[in-house]
């Protein structure tokens, strides 16, 4: 069902935990739906994402995409981090089953939410970043017969 990369990131997730006094924290998803992702960013004075940690309540794909997302944004600039889309995360994981695409959306949104938090706290505006949706809905709706 899952690629080896997904299984690796699921079983050995990178960057699990919290960052005390993080520059930005974003939480997306919703426990009712079975998935919550919280992303912590530590951003230095040059706007480089110095550190990144996460906590996730969710399926294997949710855990793996969180883990991969933290890897991808670490060391990046804010603008570069904005390019870490759900597609980029999926590609880095060698793909996800169709029903799991929404988990990768969650990861993208979690980064955005943490960046938004950072921008609010610092009173800045990040080019190209919109206020994150509070809930992620499914993209792919399977036809009902």
């Amino acid at each position, binding site marked *: 069902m899952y690629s080896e990369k997904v299984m690796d990131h699921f*079983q050995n997730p990178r960057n699990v935990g919290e960052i005390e006094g993080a520059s930005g924290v974003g939480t997306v998803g919703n426990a009712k*739906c*079975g998935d919550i992702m919280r992303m912590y960013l530590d951003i230095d004075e040059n706007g480089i994402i110095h550190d990144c940690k996460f*906590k996730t*309540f969710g399926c294997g794909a*949710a*855990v793996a995409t969180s883990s991969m997302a933290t890897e991808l944004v670490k060391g990046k600039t804010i603008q570069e981090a904005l390019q870490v889309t759900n597609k980029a995360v999926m590609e880095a994981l060698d793909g996800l089953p*169709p029903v799991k695409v929404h988990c990768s959306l969650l990861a993208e949104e979690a980064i955005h939410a943490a960046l938004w938090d950072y921008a609010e706290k610092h009173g800045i505006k990040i080019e190209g970043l919109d206020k994150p949706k509070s809930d992620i809905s*499914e993209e792919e709706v399977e036809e009902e017969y």
Partner: protein
Amino acid sequence: MKTTIYLDNAATTKTAQEVVDAMLPYFTESYGNPSSIYEIGQRSKEAITKARGQIAEVLGAKAEEIYFTAGGSEADNWALKAAFEAYKNKGNHIITTKIEHHAILHTCEYLEKRGAKVTYLDVDENGIVKMDDLLKAITPETILISIMFANNEIGAIQPIKEIGMIAKEHDILFHTDAVQAFGQVPIHVDEMNIDMLSSSGHKINGPKGIGFLYIRKGVKIRSFVHGGAQERKRRAGTENVPAIVGYGVAAERAARTMEERTKKEIELRDYFIGRILNEIPYVRLNGDAKRRLPNNINVSFQFIEGESLLIMLDMKGIAASSGSACTSGSLDPSHVLLAIGLPHEIAHGSLRMTISEETTKEDLDYTLDQIKEIVNRLRELSPLFED
């Protein structure tokens, strides 16, 4: 990892060797069509007759009241759709529960689009239907009560005899989905006033792709699959002879071993539940502790999500199931767990383990150790868990 401890016997079971052995000759030796008059066909026919008798025996039914189908889902669809057609002059109201299998629920939705009114009864926190609610739901328009014998997720066993009595007193047709109960608990269609009953072979160490609908003599239920004159003209299609033979043997076997097997299973079940509840924090048992299937364990671990748990168990060779719908890509957790009052986030963290006669105490001890470790790990990952 290769599955070594199989704890998902409510999903499907291993076909018993005895069953496979009984089936084998009907593939390559006695492969005749039972509708044919020549010898090789008559051999098939006799085999079906025997299996029908074996199954009827387990239910206290007559052989000619057993109609073979392709499985439990077809039997459920047939019972509901045909009853609605047959009795719609009398009324359009069907009573069922919120915890039925999708084969019932989705069929009800289908019928609602075609004019049926359906009452979905609540269940109590243990998953049991309240007779008061049932009585209140009955109207002069009620043509059918369909309440499952035992639930597939939480194992709750309904008071079928009482329900049957109520149905009879009100002259309402009573169907029960006994897919999880047949062969696991004693059933007697007359004593319980059951008019129709669904069952599926692969849940009792029989083959997949075969089931039956018991239809009490005199109940006017038309065909669901039209065509040839098989199954007394009520279900068309060349009979699945090997599967029917295997099903007969599986039913006979399930009945024969029931007492001893379920006694052992209940002991193991209660031992396992006891240890889980005692040794893992933030956990609850789902479903009635006593009125539950001998082989069913269903617990919720707070703060974690089921699919992750399942995958990690799978890595340890353990096969189990969860009430989280994440696995199916839909966001709603099990309708059964919600119906017994679990909040969504707790329903997501549920784990169902259904043991078999082959399950040992060692299997469960090993499983418990793994669960403990995995639950810890996942809680550490979880933003909901504050230690």
